[in-house]
């Protein structure tokens, strides 16, 4: 038997989580380094997986299959296609940055009583690694039940990450408000956000559970590959209504996770209240599971129902795009602004998936990756900014670029990536999504293009209000990016630039998978007019 690479990619962070959690209370720094080491090891494994993956080969590669719960035909089945492996790589890539960015986020407060049992730092990093393990495994799972379990289980560490760790009070000279009552209110807000996140996603998951069971009843197996094959060769046919109901059950859960309008309201709260690295974890990593699952499960398992639901979903996605962008413009809290921007971007991703064209779906997959990187860059820099002043309010800043030009510069690049400037990677994906949508649904494509203008609006307004103008007195002594922070941001920016100019390695991996998916739903790209005329 060959080395179980995919299991290893998930097992390593899981081990790391346990190891980090076991570090004694006094040795905080060791825990951090341990977590970083494990995440880097995972990254190395992910790179190996990426290299071993053959773009032109079988649909699912590096597969593993073991009996698990034989009574219900549940198997531990892993395998990645191009989409899965690239998202796996994204996750493995982002987590080290998240860890590094959150280096001091979970340090115990100085005035806290020393307590041998109290180990927030260890907990924080262990939870991050646990999330990583589960997300990675969910990208690999080809068994619906296994996927479901992971889909739900990752909520638990996320819940604690959101509810347990908030923004730190700033050093006294930058503090916007006196600590004390504010802290308590923040803690209340945070637990509200965490509970909301949990309940929202659990509700989605519960409906999905019903659909998973329904699927088992109909198909008699949980194996994605088997079901997809049976559907393709016609040996498994579902009644139209059954298929639609099952599809909706799955889709609802994914739409909550993604999140799609009008199921989005948990995201701004969660991202606003969590620390910036955790917010990145939410939007750049965990939420991708939702869109990924739409592509993998909704379309493969229920091709007819997917086509049936396409118009409605496209309209919802369109609303997400415009609505998210407009709300982002109206935000006063920069983390919430980024959250709404993410909602807008998720609208693009979902639109690309359901445009059912190769450009749309490739674009959507690239979008997932690029959005992960760009949001990570923007959010982490925003987090560095917030950590210096202790306030998330845009109005508390002004003229930062004068005192911290490097910070402002990286912030601008992150922002430009968010508004999809050509030359940065999000442009590639956004344009592909738009083209893919436009070629089948011109009106929707044109309206979605409005998102481009609105994105520019909210990014530039954010930049203008925080970075330009006269320097506010409170931030006159604000330090520029430190080395650790630069180490976090610089590679992300380099990646944004590289993938913006040379996304071919990625499209090569993703393309065949998208072709498979399109053949599952039996759709082909529309022919251009001139060619059609000839």
């Amino acid at each position: 038997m060959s080395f179980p690479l995919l299991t290893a990619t998930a097992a390593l962070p899981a081990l790391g989580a346990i190891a980090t959690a076991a570090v004694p209370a006094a040795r905080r720094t060791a825990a951090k380094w341990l977590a970083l080491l494990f995440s880097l090891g995972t990254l190395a494994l992910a790179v190996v997986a990426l290299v071993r993956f053959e773009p032109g080969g079988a649909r699912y590669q590096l597969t593993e299959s073991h009996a698990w719960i034989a009574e219900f035909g549940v198997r531990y089945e892993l395998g990645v296609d191009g989409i899965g492996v690239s998202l796996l790589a994204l996750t493995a890539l982002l987590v080290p940055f998240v860890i590094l960015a959150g280096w001091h986020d979970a340090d115990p407060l100085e005035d806290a009583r020393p307590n041998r049992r109290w180990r927030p730092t260890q907990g924080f990093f262990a939870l991050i690694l646990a999330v990583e393990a589960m997300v990675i495994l969910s990208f690999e799972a080809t068994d619906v039940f296994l996927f479901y379990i992971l889909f739900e289980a990752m909520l638990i560490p996320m819940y604690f990450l959101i509810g347990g760790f908030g923004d730190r009070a700033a050093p006294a000279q930058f503090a916007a408000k006196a600590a004390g009552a504010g802290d308590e209110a923040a803690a209340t807000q945070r637990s509200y956000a965490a509970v909301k996140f949990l309940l929202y996603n659990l509700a989605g998951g519960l409906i999905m559970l019903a659909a998973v069971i329904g699927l088992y009843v109909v198909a008699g197996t949980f194996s994605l590959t088997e079901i997809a094959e049976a559907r393709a060769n016609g040996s498994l046919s579902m009644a139209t209504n059954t298929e639609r109901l099952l599809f909706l059950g799955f889709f609802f859960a994914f739409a909550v996770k993604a999140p799609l309008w009008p199921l989005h309201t948990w995201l701004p709260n969660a991202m606003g209240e969590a620390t910036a690295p955790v917010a990145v974890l939410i939007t750049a990593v965990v939420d991708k599971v939702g869109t990924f699952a739409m592509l993998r499960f909704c379309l493969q398992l229920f091709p007819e129902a997917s086509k049936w639901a396409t118009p409605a979903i496209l309209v919802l996605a369109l609303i997400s795009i415009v609505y998210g962008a407009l709300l982002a413009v109206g935000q006063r809290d920069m983390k919430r602004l980024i959250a709404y921007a993410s909602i807008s971007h998720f609208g693009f991703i979902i639109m690309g998936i359901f445009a059912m064209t190769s450009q749309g779906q490739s674009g959507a997959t690239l979008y997932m990756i690029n959005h992960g990187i760009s949001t990570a860059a923007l959010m982490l820099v925003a987090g560095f900014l917030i950590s210096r002043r202790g306030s998330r309010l845009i109005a508390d800043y002004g003229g930062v670029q004068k005192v911290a030009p490097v910070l402002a510069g990286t912030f601008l690049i992150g922002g430009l990536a968010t508004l999809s400037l050509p030359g940065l990677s999000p442009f590639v994906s956004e344009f592909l999504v738009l083209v893919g949508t436009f070629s089948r649904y011109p009106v929707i494509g044109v309206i979605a293009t409005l998102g481009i203008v609105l994105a520019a609006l909210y990014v530039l307004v954010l930049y203008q209000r925080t970075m330009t103008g006269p320097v506010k007195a409170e931030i006159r002594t604000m330090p520029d990016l430190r080395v650790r922070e630069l180490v976090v941001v610089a590679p992300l920016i380099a990646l944004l630039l590289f993938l913006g100019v040379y996304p071919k390695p990625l499209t090569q991996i993703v393309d065949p998978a998208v072709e498979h998916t399109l053949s599952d739903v039996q759709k082909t790209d529309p022919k251009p007019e001139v060619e059609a005329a000839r």
Partner: protein
Amino acid sequence: MENLIAPLIAAPLLGAAVLLCGGRRLDRAGHWIGTVLAGASFVIGVLLFADLLGRGAEDRTLHQHLFSWIPVGSFRADIAFQLDQLSMTFVLLITGVGTLIHIYSIGYMEHDERRRRFFGYLNLFLAAMLLLVLADNYLLLYMGWEGVGLASYLLIGFWQHKPSAATAAKKAFLVNRVGDLGLSIAIMLMFTTFGTFAFGPVLGAAGDASEGKLTAIGLMLLLAACGKSAQVPLQSWLGDAMEGPTPVSALIHAATMVTAGVYLITRSGAIFNGAPDAQLVVVVVGAVTLLFGAIVGCAKDDIKKALAGSTMSQIGYMILAAGLGPIGYVFAIMHLVTHGFFKAGLFLGAGSVMHGMNDEVDMRKYGGLRKYMPVTFVTFGLGYLAIIGFPGLSGFFSKDKIIEAAFAKGGTEGWILGGVALLGAAITAFYMTRVMLMTFFGEERWRGRETASPAEPSAEPAAEERGRHAEPHPHESPKSMTIPMVVLAFGSVFAGGLFSFGDSFVRWLEPVTGYAHGHPPISAAAVTTATVVALVIGVAVAWLMYGRVPVPVTAPRGSLLTRAARRDLLQDDFNHVVLVRGGEHLTRSLVYVDHTLVDGVVNGTAASFGGLSGRLRKLQNGYARSYAVTMFGGTAVLIAATLLMRAV
């Protein structure tokens, strides 16, 4: 030789990368690195030009394919370049004027502590602009298109600590984004129509597509051009863009970037040729902007804003010409080039004046400066003569041809367009003469006055060090600033004649843009005469108003039209009321809706469950016996159910 195309772009790109990432270590040498790399780019351009000249007229297209950019299914975008006569013209203009302005900036930005970054941005702009004109497909062009937008954003907002500059930069980017919307939709349309968006296949197959599609593409391209070239209705950003340092205004907002729209329309000539309706819209936009810019230019007291209005108007001429089809493309480009020379010269002159006047921009506080800055006066004057179309100078040749072509459009349209163009020429002469008179002639109105009063914030922050509130001491600018002005003045004087000599420019561009000789209903000589008459009238009126009588230091209230023109013909107010206020209200109400309605439904669901639980909670009265009853009842029900099942 085609391998030299990439280095052409790479040189300034490298400069930008080095200067922006290099940090403070490069502060002392930064401007030299930037200038040298811009110059290198110009040298490569000249080499390529020489190579092209050495080839046959039909063989003057070079291609360089670097790598496949976005290959997805049938969607193929490449990083590939195409250098033909049209691109070459632009390359020389961009790198040539660009290098001169780099040199100028060395002196102009000497006191600015962030000069290194300024040069980085300038280099970035050069790279993006070259990418724009050298791309061989629309998507890559789009990349350049947005790239220049970014550079423009960064440079307009270069003095970011000034809120007005930051706002102007944001406004420029946003308005441009609206235009970019057009370009991206145009590219999508091309993809669905032709299956590709590379120049060759698209323009080659343009004839096969339906006219409706072509019109749609054309209109979208026009929207893009309107955004970038500040044409009505997306012109509002250009005036505000003057918040940027003057070299920026000269390079980006006069000579090169704003003309990208003209390039786009000319480049897409094949599409417009197949879509007469789109062409009509193009000429209408051109004509309207021509008058709009000219009228705005007449009313502004800020020297740079007056010039900006003029830029708008001149680009209106170019767009008008480009909309005329094959009879106008060549002249549009020709006017573009000559305009590039004289308008850059004028801006640099204006910068030089401001440099000597403690960064005062209000022309009403100038006057009689010709004695103090002779070189500036002469170069500015030559530029002035060129732009008003003084016979024999560059502007005369190019503008005259456009007016001629406008008449040649034929029918009522031709008369109207020709008339508008002539009127525009007259107004141009008026406002440029006004600028000239107010700046270099008349009383020395700056005597005994503080400059840069708080009401008119200084454009250049370096003014702080140079004695902000002192009376200005007008002086000539350093060599690094005057030399580029002189070079550009040469261009303004001779370029037109050179191009027209033996129709060399027409023959040079014809293989790319095509050329059809227009036949105006009146003779060419009559058109020329009319142009000159219009010019004389304009100059005369201006002299009567500003030369013969002293200019008041504070602006008179003026007529309704004047006041409207000072406010950019109220377009900003319209934008403000409709878009900004409306948008604010929309977002605010949406935030409210999101909080109360969408989230309200969610929280309401949670609350209703909470309420239900509260009711159910009452069952939990704590009495064990009460629970026992429930349990006992449950058991009874279970037995009943079992019995029932057995019975059934």
